[in-house]
């Protein structure tokens, strides 16, 4: 296996495009690279878990339909750091930003988790 470039992984399955779009914007504004991969799995927990496990940076996002979750490496599957269902634009941006902030070791946005 070759080394990945350090980036946040976003694993998607049948994802609502506006969710993906805004989550990516959230990450991009924070200046951390990301990669999007279409996956066969359906379960958002599994997507987020796998994304985090496989990212060099240890930070991953799963999007299935209109649900998204953010995960960090070695956190058990299903214990997502954040999970948003039918989210609005700001929620998506924050989820993306937080996946990047985890990498930058900065406090999460929307502090009162």
């Amino acid at each position, binding site marked *: 296996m070759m080394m990945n470039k350090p980036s946040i992984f976003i694993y998607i399955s049948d994802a609502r495009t506006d969710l993906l779009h805004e989550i990516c*914007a959230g990450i*991009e*504004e*924070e*200046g951390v690279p990301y990669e999007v991969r279409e996956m066969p799995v359906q379960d958002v927990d599994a997507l987020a878990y796998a994304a985090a496990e496989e990212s060099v940076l240890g930070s991953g996002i799963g999007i299935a339909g209109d649900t998204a979750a953010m995960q*960090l490496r*070695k*956190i058990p599957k299903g214990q997502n*750091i*954040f999970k948003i269902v039918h989210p609005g634009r700001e929620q998506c941006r924050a989820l993306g930003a937080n996946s990047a*902030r*985890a990498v930058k*070791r*900065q*406090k*999460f946005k929307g*502090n*009162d*988790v």
Partner: protein
Amino acid sequence: MNYIAGVDIGNSTTEVCIAALENGRLHFLGSASKMTTGTKGTQANVAGILAALKEACEKLNMSAGEISLIRINEAAPVIGDTAMETITETIITESSMIGHNPSTPAGEGQAVGRTISLGHLKQGNSYTPYIVMADKSCSYEEVADTLNRYAQARNVTGMILQADEAVLVENRLERKIPIVDEVRYIEKIPEGKLAALEVAMAGSSVRMLSNPYGIATLLEIDAQETKTVTPIAKSLIGKRSAVVIKTPHGNVREQILPAGEIYIEAEKDQTVNIDAGADAIMQALAQAGEIRDIRGQEQTNVGNMLARIKKGMSTVSDENQEEIRITDLLAVDTLAPVVISGALAGETCLEKAVGIAAMVKTRQLPMEKIADELRRQLKTKVKVAGVEAVMAALGAMTTPGTRLPLAILDLGGGSTDAAVMTPKGTVRMVHQAGAGELVTMLIQVELGLHSKNTAEQIKRYPLAKVESLFHMRLESGAIEFFPDAIEPKYFGSVVLLTGKEMIRIDEDIPMEKIAAVRREAKRKVFVTNAVRALQAVAPEQDLRNIPNVVLVGGSAEDFEIPEMLMEKFAEYRIVCGRGNIRRTEGPRNAVATGLVLSYLGDSHVDDE
């Protein structure tokens, strides 16, 4: 068996100590401490005393009723109080500056141009350099599209955004420009003005706009104007991004508030203005000799503050306000981060302020009333027995390695007290304003904390930064792992390690900054005050005449103050360290222990 209890009512803490008297010898059995209930010296204290006695007795499997004699301290009628006085105020006039730390600006570098809103770009021309402003109603795609469309027809050198989208916009631009974002009140920026904009590299701060001649170079202003932009340059030091807008009257003004004068009535009367700073105030105090009273100029901040302190004390002590006097002050210079008025993006500026602790003296604290109430409730003998500082010295003597002459420094909440006891038993003492509470206040003000409680905790506990869900970095640089992944709410936060739980600090301040402010606050208050206090009681006012100093009181429990003092006093070859009362109590319980010990030397007249 006769049981004797010593009770020490402090500003903050009520401490008790219980001993058994057998064949004329005392055996110390135990101790306890509780928060003082009510203001020191008032009947409200009784609740706290009873609670402390109860706790101590329970540990010994006895009841408070079995105590045959309670000795309470003849508390010095002095109480410390603290307040803060801001003496400068920075005001931006005519929206002339933005200087803040958006977490994600974009495109490092400088730009000069005329301000123009995105919507008006069309009406612009091809030869003027522009700095474009876009509010958050425009999406980043729109903004980038528009700029790319005008790439040839307009000369755009920089951008100011209201939304947090600088990186998003810059990534989509064909020609890269510096972009400042998160400018909250973007609508206040005038159009058509010449402006200079700078974004620093990640991890560093602006270099051109924090230099008056840098601003002069970019905005082509003359020497007179350069003088007026100097406060702008100064307030931009350390900022990640900045914009300076050339407006005819735009400026940043540092206004000195009418802080008022302090009048010291003393052997040699003194007058000193608060805005002369702490050093000048302390010098005036040192020159005054014995102080009768300190007042503040009427209708000024400091005047109101000192009057408020006296009034509070007079209510508590049932004395006329005229009888209440202020006999000591500790003034400390500090810098408080305050949001600049007129700011466009929530800019803050460090305003000068003076923190003041005052020592308030009343004629007599009604300790007898407290004694009466205790007699009534416990039906035992209660005696008001001896001066606090003497008792503290007696108690401190139980620390191993001490001998007379001995100096104690009682580092409390409101006051720093010192006493020197000679081998002949004579005692000199002094009560000085300023101790643990002033430290807490300085920490709160300098870090801009919302809660005093957070400041108190910062004072007491070491820091760590949670760097992942699995580990944290301690203040000392060491890494510590959590046995299990920690809750995400702690992620990226600075926390306090209390030994039990972990306290998260909500404010977003770097750990190193918090630690530096904490240490500096302790140094400013306690090193200054300890030297001042010992000088006052030292034989011939010379510190070298004091062989050893025992630190007692709540602030002697601090994890770094005793070592600061020890290093300071090492210069004078003084043995100094945290006390260890009765080999077991650490720096606590000195007065209570002294009260019990003094029973042996006392005349034992029965008093009901």
